[in-house]
């Protein structure tokens, strides 16, 4: 037997498969789940510290409640806006056929290409009145309220998540139901309202959770926006507050407290949302035939579509890329420090590269286990657990992880790098697993089963039959993880503020008021992410055509 055959034989043996899976599960629990929620134990171990340093400090408490209040309010408003405007867009994507649909599809994902720090800057110079140190006057200069600006900013990167989630669900709902409703006499609007939307519920919960959690987590962009918006001192979201305290030594109790609050409130709220959405009674018994008929035809649907596209262009796309105009119109007072920037870029790439590889090696087997284990206890539990690092705001995740692995607060370069890797691993792992799980669940198990009866061992059935069908999803998961890691600020600051990643470099430039260099760095990051995204779209399109 050749060595490849021996290896195949070895890997196919039941013991090996079980062993590897066991390793993956243990790794997942030990390196991802437990560190993510470790901070919660602080309540029990250091309650007195919290009491003394935090609860008894009225100034700190005010700041904390204000920041948390801001974060949750912003997240809620952003999610609602995303849903109301995103739903018609999802409809256009899934149900309508027209030339240029591919282009629309690409446009919707574009804000994801821009690192959030850049989005923060872009949003400020488009919408807001900038601080005097920012020499720029080509924006609308409409907004001076930090709250409103942050809402507008958060819409930029959460809108694609909502549209994608809604599109995915809509794509799964058989249009025949709606058609059946129409043959029974229901106008289009009535049919959608009474038949399709109620079937949406499960996906709606996913969309809401993703949007909300993303908004709660975001740090870099919010910080940059607040730093460059005039008159915004004193305004904080929970992540920026954490960032502030991180630079003050001895703040562990405060940081722990904020993180705990964030995690607990986020989990409670999202469970409540899931329950409410499932039990909510939609008004599907009441019909208003005449007005619904009028709204179904002619002017109204066209208006709805035009509004959706206008929103996409003017509220999402243009503000996202407005940063390009800064580079064009402004000049630099200092020379761009390319070597430091490129080093930070290399650092970010190294982190992103490592976590992507680990995500692939461990996430794919776990996803397979969960997807093919529906109905069994352990896979179901793991399925729920996988979502935890997604829901926990990344700053809180960073704090928690830092406490778990590095309680002493050592700050050597090596330790910082490892901590950043572990933190980024935690919040990218769910992305990979969810992508692959979704793809595997969409494929009929009959293909692998047929392959096995044709003589293929499990690993051969995977490699030759299942893998080609899900490879584009695996790749999508990998690129999502990679770009997410590249753009992340909050977790990095929370776990190792001295780590020199590209986003942190940009944030530091902003702190030093070197806006031009920051803008240039942002644009370099955008271009790189864009290149990745184009490659991904090219590959997924080829695979989709083959299927």
């Amino acid at each position, binding site marked *: 037997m050749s060595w490849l055959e021996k290896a195949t034989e070895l890997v196919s043996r039941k013991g090996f498969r079980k062993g590897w899976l066991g390793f993956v599960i243990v790794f997942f629990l030990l390196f991802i789940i437990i560190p993510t929620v470790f901070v919660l134990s602080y309540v029990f171990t250091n309650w007195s510290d919290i009491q003394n340093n935090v609860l008894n400090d009225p100034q700190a408490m005010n700041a904390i409640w204000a920041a948390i209040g801001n974060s949750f309010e912003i997240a809620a408003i952003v999610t609602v806006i995303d849903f109301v405007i995103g739903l018609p867009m999802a409809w256009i994507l899934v149900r309508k056929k027209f030339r240029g649909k591919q282009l629309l599809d690409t446009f919707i994902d574009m804000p994801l290409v821009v690192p959030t720090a850049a989005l923060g800057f872009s949003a400020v110079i488009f919408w807001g009145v900038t601080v005097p140190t920012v020499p720029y006057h080509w924006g609308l200069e409409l907004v001076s309220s930090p709250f409103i600006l942050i809402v507008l900013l958060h819409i930029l990167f959460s809108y694609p998540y909502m549209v994608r989630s809604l599109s995915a669900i809509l794509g799964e709902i*058989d249009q025949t*139901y709606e058609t*059946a409703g*129409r*043959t*029974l006499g229901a106008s*289009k609007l009535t049919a959608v309202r009474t038949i399709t939307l109620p079937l949406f519920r499960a996906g709606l919960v996913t969309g809401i959770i993703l949007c909300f959690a993303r908004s709660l987590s975001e740090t870099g962009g919010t910080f940059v926006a607040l730093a460059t918006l005039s008159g915004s001192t004193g305004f904080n979201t929970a992540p920026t507050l954490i960032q502030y305290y991180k630079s003050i030594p001895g703040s562990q109790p405060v940081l722990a407290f904020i993180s705990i609050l964030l995690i607990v409130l986020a989990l409670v709220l999202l469970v409540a949302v899931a329950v409410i959405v499932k039990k909510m009674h939609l008004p599907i018994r009441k*019909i208003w*035939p005449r007005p619904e008929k009028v709204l179904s035809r002619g002017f109204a649907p066209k208006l709805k579509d035009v509004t959706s596209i206008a929103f996409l262009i003017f509220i999402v796309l243009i503000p996202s890329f407005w940063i390009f105009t800064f580079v064009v119109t402004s000049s630099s007072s200092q020379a761009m420090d390319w070597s430091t920037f490129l080093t930070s870029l290399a650092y970010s790439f190294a982190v992103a590269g490592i976590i992507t590889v680990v995500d692939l090696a461990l996430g794919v087997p776990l996803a397979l286990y969960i997807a093919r284990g529906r109905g069994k206890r352990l896979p179901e539990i793991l399925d729920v657990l996988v979502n935890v690092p997604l829901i926990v705001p990344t700053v809180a995740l960073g704090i928690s992880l830092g406490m778990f692995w590095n309680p002493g607060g050592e700050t050597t370069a090596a330790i910082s790098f490892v901590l950043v890797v572990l933190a980024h691993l935690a919040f990218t792992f769910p992305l990979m697993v969810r992508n692959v799980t979704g793809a595997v669940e969409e494929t009929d198990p009959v293909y692998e089963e047929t392959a096995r009866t044709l003589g293929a061992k499990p690993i051969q059935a995977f490699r030759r039959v299942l893998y080609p069908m899900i490879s584009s999803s695996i790749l999508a998961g990998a690129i999502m993880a990679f770009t997410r890691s590249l753009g992340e600020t909050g977790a990095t600051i929370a776990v190792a503020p001295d780590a020199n990643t590209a986003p942190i470099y940009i944030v530091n430039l902003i702190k030093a008021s070197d806006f031009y260099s920051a803008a240039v760095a942002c644009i370099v990051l955008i271009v790189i992410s864009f290149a990745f995204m184009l490659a991904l779209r090219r590959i997924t399109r080829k695979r989709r055509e083959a299927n």
Partner: protein
Amino acid sequence: MPQVELRNITMRFGKVVAADEVDLIIADGEYVTILGPSGCGKTTLIRIIAGILEPTQGEVLIGGKNMKGVPIEERDLGYVFQNIALFPHFTVQRNVTYGPMVKDRGKDEQRQTAQKYLELVKLLDKMQMFPSELCGGEQQKASLARALATDAKLLLLDEPLSALDARVRVDLRYELRRIVKRLGLTAVHVTHDQEEAMSVSDRIVVMRAGGIVESGTPQQLYTRPKDIFTSNFVGETNLLEGWVKERAEGRSVIELRDESTIVVEQCDFDEGDAVVVSVRPEFVFPFTDGLLSKIEYFTYMGTYWRVTAEAQSEDMVEFDVPAAEGKLYHPGQEIYLMINRKAAVVFPRPKEGIAEAVKLE
């Protein structure tokens, strides 16, 4: 006034022509089945009637009114889907009351309507169940009740029985016709199953590759098909290649490949024409004279055996013998086969060859 009229309907999907200049008239109260193999365009036609598809060319008239620009919900018809499409989040009752509900009928009227039609399909005891709790046949009956509850006079059925088990299909198709006739509806039923078509229809329209081949009552299509494709698609038949040797009123002689001859009663061709004789297995019987054939094999059909033999003319011939007589014959045996001259139908020999002309896919 005819209930449904299709005038010069053409439907193109890119380069594919799903329906090619189709004309069809369905009279008020008729139960018409559009029958054809997959891809022949039958589903396209029924969707055009319903308004789910807008034809590339041509007009649809329902009740004399042109349906151009009229959306689905205003065409006043009932539609039964192949994949049933009961709303999963509504009970059977709420599925059935959906039609009356969207027309804003009162609650009492809705309930009465549901009761009336669920009773008709004998599903009254399953009213409060959800579709997922019913089995296939029950689901389709509920779907029928839902379509009928709109009180529409036109019922469209898109392969309504294809998803069901064979046994359930047989039971349900009688019910379909019974209910449609009892309510005095016009029905357009689409299927690929010729047995189903024959047992439910007043008239069958045979389609192939986007066009209508012929139309007639089940008996007409079975006993006197006008096209060779119909003779093979509606029921099974033997096809024998030959030439017209003699032609006379009431008695013509066809010569087969090996110069043996068969006699047919009706032949509309001239001497020397190349023809194909179609005769169904039940009209071929062993005799003391006729086509010399060798028995190849037997197929058990329950109450009879279907015997497959090769005639000396190189045509394959199938005939039936009662179950009890099966032991009288054995493979390899040589017998003479006589055909019933009244039952034989003569077609012109197709240019593309018989196999191509009767191809099922």
